């Protein structure tokens, strides 16, 4: 299996080196998706299936979709840029677009960072410390309400971090929507039957898989984030095939769906605090039910937020949609 690991590592390295040299935004986005999938495989080899699921769905899939949409929009806006008061874009994509002193500084930074980081590598093979946190996590697993350690860490021991993480997602969506520009990407559905029929088959399957991943998280790798990412991907696919549906959501529905996760989580935490326990301390008999309930709300929010982050720059006009 070491051969597989070496080959995987070399492929990841090759993809990253290519990213250093490519200047086409479209090619770089595709390369990044490849990079993300290879990295997910590497994490499977590192016995981290939850992280691999999340990286494949979120890091490779959704980030890739966002990058491609942005690349397309930058290109199309560049094409209509004929105004004389806009700055002329600088020359090309030379590898070294910095002046000589800056290049010298970068070289110095390279040497210093490389020295510091490469020195870490032999340190890695030294005797590791006692895994105190891991033993604690597994030791208290029955009291947490779930039987999968990572889910217990996310939603029981470190529920505060997950609450804040939902807040960060919401903040990113607010920020992205606050910068909506008039020149949005007009999405025209791809002509022909392939996308249409593929989506009609794939979207129901992805919904089932997404819901299954949510339920699975209590005893196996899975959980709210992976589930939300798969559901978001299903929505993105659906919108790619039927772009007129993007505007079918009313603002009120949208706002309640994206804030549902954070609000439910916060109310649950405050509720147990008012009932006698501390903030976010789930009583053992209710822990499983509370965690599943919070995860359901969080999944809806995560899916909606991630899908809206993609759809934020899609504009459809009835003239262009010829269905």
């Amino acid at each position, binding site marked *: 299996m070491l051969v597989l690991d070496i080959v995987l590592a070399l492929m990841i390295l090759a993809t990253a080196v290519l990213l250093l040299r490519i200047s086409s935004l479209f090619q770089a986005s595709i390369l990044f998706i490849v990079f993300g999938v290879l990295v997910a495989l590497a994490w499977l080899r*590192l016995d981290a299936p939850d992280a691999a699921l999340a990286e494949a769905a979120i890091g490779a899939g959704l980030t890739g979709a*966002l990058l491609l949409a942005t690349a397309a929009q930058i290109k199309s806006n560049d094409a209509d840029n004929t105004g004389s008061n806009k700055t002329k874009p600088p020359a090309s994509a030379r590898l070294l677009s910095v002046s000589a002193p800056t290049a010298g500084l970068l070289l110095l930074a390279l040497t210093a960072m490389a020295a510091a980081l490469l020195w870490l590598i032999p340190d890695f093979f030294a005797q590791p410390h006692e895994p105190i946190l891991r033993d604690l996590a597994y030791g208290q697993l029955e009291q947490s309400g779930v039987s999968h350690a990572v889910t217990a860490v996310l939603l029981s021991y470190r529920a505060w971090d997950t609450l804040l993480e939902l807040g960060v997602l919401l903040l990113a969506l607010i920020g992205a929507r606050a910068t909506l520009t008039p020149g949005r990407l007009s999405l025209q559905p791809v002509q022909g039957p392939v996308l249409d029929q593929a989506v009609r088959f794939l979207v129901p399957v992805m919904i089932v898989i997404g819901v299954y991943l949510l339920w699975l998280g209590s005893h196996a790798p899975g959980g709210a984030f992976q589930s939300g990412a798969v559901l978001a991907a299903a929505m993105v696919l659906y919108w790619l095939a039927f772009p007129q549906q993007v505007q079918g959501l009313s603002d009120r529905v949208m706002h309640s769906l994206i804030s549902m996760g954070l609000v439910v989580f916060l109310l649950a935490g405050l509720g147990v605090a008012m009932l006698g326990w501390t903030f976010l301390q789930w009583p053992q008999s209710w822990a499983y039910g509370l965690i599943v309930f919070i995860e359901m709300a969080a999944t809806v929010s995560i899916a909606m937020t991630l899908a809206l982050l993609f759809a934020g720059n899609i504009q459809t006009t009835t003239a262009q949609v010829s269905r």
Partner: protein
Amino acid sequence: MTAGLFFALAVVLFLLGFFIQALRPALMLKVLGLNVMSVAVFMAFLALANRHTPADPVVHAMVLTGIVVAISATAFALALIRALQHRNGHTQLDLAQLDRERVCSDAHDCHDAKERH
């Protein structure tokens, strides 16, 4: 051995990601470079967690949180890039160009700078 290999890869990826974002003038490629750096950090964490059996779940949860935060930041950065494209017509950060256009307080210095470039 697997963990050690991927830890070394993570170190190299971190350096590569830093240089992708430092050297490419296109803002979107800088965002890509930052993402590569994040992935490298996650890989280092997971390699460290893999030194024990069974693996450390706290580190896995941290990486999961990190992945979600990374896509939030990336999505916001891409929205800002789209806004910049709309405002400026381009999304390149050419440091040499910025050096040439830098505001100087001393007319004498500006004059010399203009002559050099």
